[in-house]
């Protein structure tokens, strides 16, 4: 286990060492809300961050398994390609923005725009999420055990949203859809993979009505 103290050495040194490390187990202490911690890692390494982080923690992550034992600022796990990022606390806005793969787990709540522009990644939030989540979400799966804020899935493409609690309101072209056996299975697998306990049976599924896929004047007011 390698320990790195961000109160003693600069972020640049930490990230460079993480980029050069093909394997290993790291503990990062005194993050103190710093930005871009563990951004751009591309190796199957384990990273534990002891405390709260600022913006873009684990940005563009590939392969690494990152655990944030605290809360995260805006854009945690943005553009993630693979690997896992787990946040024990809450996450700020734009969590999991534009992710292509991998799994983001939030044990607390997420604020606005969770999963915005997602492109194939999976996000599981044990708590609730804020407004405009899954905005323009293209593909991937977003699971919310708690409630979802206003305009969920606004302008959504093919991403799938599962919500266990209530939805304040739906965004343009986002509708409730049937939960089939296949979806229940997919949801159960995600919950299991993320270690979040919830009963798949109480979730509802949301997705695109596909009315905005080609312009139709009768839907002009949705724009």
């Amino acid at each position, binding site marked *: 286990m390698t320990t790195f103290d961000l109160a003693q050495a600069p972020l640049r040194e930490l990230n460079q060492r993480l980029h050069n490390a093909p394997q290993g187990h790291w503990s990062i202490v005194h993050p*103190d*809300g*710093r*930005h871009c911690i563990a951004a751009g890692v591309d190796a199957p390494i384990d990273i534990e961050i002891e*405390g*709260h*982080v*600022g*913006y873009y923690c684990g940005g563009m992550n590939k392969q690494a398994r990152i655990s944030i034992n605290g*809360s995260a*600022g*805006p854009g945690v796990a943005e553009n993630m390609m693979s690997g896992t990022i787990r946040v024990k*606390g*809450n996450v*700020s*806005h734009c969590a999991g923005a534009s992710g292509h793969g991998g799994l983001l787990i939030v044990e607390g709540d997420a*604020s*606005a725009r969770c999963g915005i522009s997602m492109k194939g990644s999976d996000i599981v939030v044990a708590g609730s999420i*804020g*407004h*405009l989540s899954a905005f323009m979400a293209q593909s991937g799966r977003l699971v919310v055990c708690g409630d979802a804020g206003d305009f969920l899935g606004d302008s959504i493409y093919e991403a799938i949203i599962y919500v266990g609690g209530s939805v304040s309101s739906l965004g343009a072209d986002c509708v409730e859809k049937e939960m089939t056996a296949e979806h229940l299975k997919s949801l159960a697998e995600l919950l299991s993979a993320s270690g979040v306990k919830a009963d798949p049976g109480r979730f509802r599924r949301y997705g695109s009505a596909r009315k905005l896929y080609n312009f139709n004047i009768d839907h002009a007011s949705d724009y």
Partner: protein
Amino acid sequence: MCGIVGIYLKNKELNNDLGAMLAAMLAQMSERGPDSAGIAVYRNTVDPSKIKLTLFGADAEYDWNQLRLRCARAFKAEPDIEIRASHAVFSIAAPLPDLKNWLNSHEPGLRIMSAGSTIEIYKEKGTPLEFIKRFHVQDFHGSHALGHTRMATESAVTTEHSHPFSTGLDLCLVHNGSLSNHNQLRERLQRNGIEFQTDNDSEVAAGYLMWQLQRGASLEEALTRALKDLDGFYTFAVGTRTGFAVLRDPIACKPAVMAENDDWVAMASEFRAIAQLPGVEKARVWEPAPATVYSWGDA
């Protein structure tokens, strides 16, 4: 293009540490606001017969002692003056409108930064770290404070364009974001008698709040109406004599983090400012929801 911070002490025993906490928070906002800094500190409430102003003198050689003498003669009352870098806290038993008129005619080189019983506002060009040093921010004691660091758009970074903007007695506002209808709003407010020093959008927000308060709205009502009348992106922190309030616009793209423990409530644009505070490990950390007024104290 800014950083904002706010700290409100629930535990009065920490009042002596207010300045140290404020300085630590402000320093963390240096990168997002490198051009100028400003603070509003609530401390040293004056006797009800008096009014307290913070005055800014651009001239480094300004003779504050002469001001004291001239004022004492004009108002038949001895003013107290506490000098801090380019500013002075000036309190006197005199009616505010008369005082303002007198200052405007006799001391055109001075700018009134704030007026009230408790508030003091200090703003200057330069980096936040320079500001903290020049104004000995860590030495302040008081009940609560707001701070702002600015990334300026216009080339002439001036003190006038810096925040906090004072909106009325013991009232101030700091803003992170960009309003889009402030020009029309400024004209409307000017027709209603509100005066502006700059073309800054944040000053319009401050003027708008003052206008609403003058018409009898509570601070919460004024901020709720702001949601309808102001267009654009904003996180506002507003200071009052006894507390402070926070408001984000409905889209809420500009950041805001809040934290609270038994001793204090804090807000900042980035968590790393809050990370500096004592007892942060025990604090509840959350993000204010959009279009929702949060307030503490009797704000």
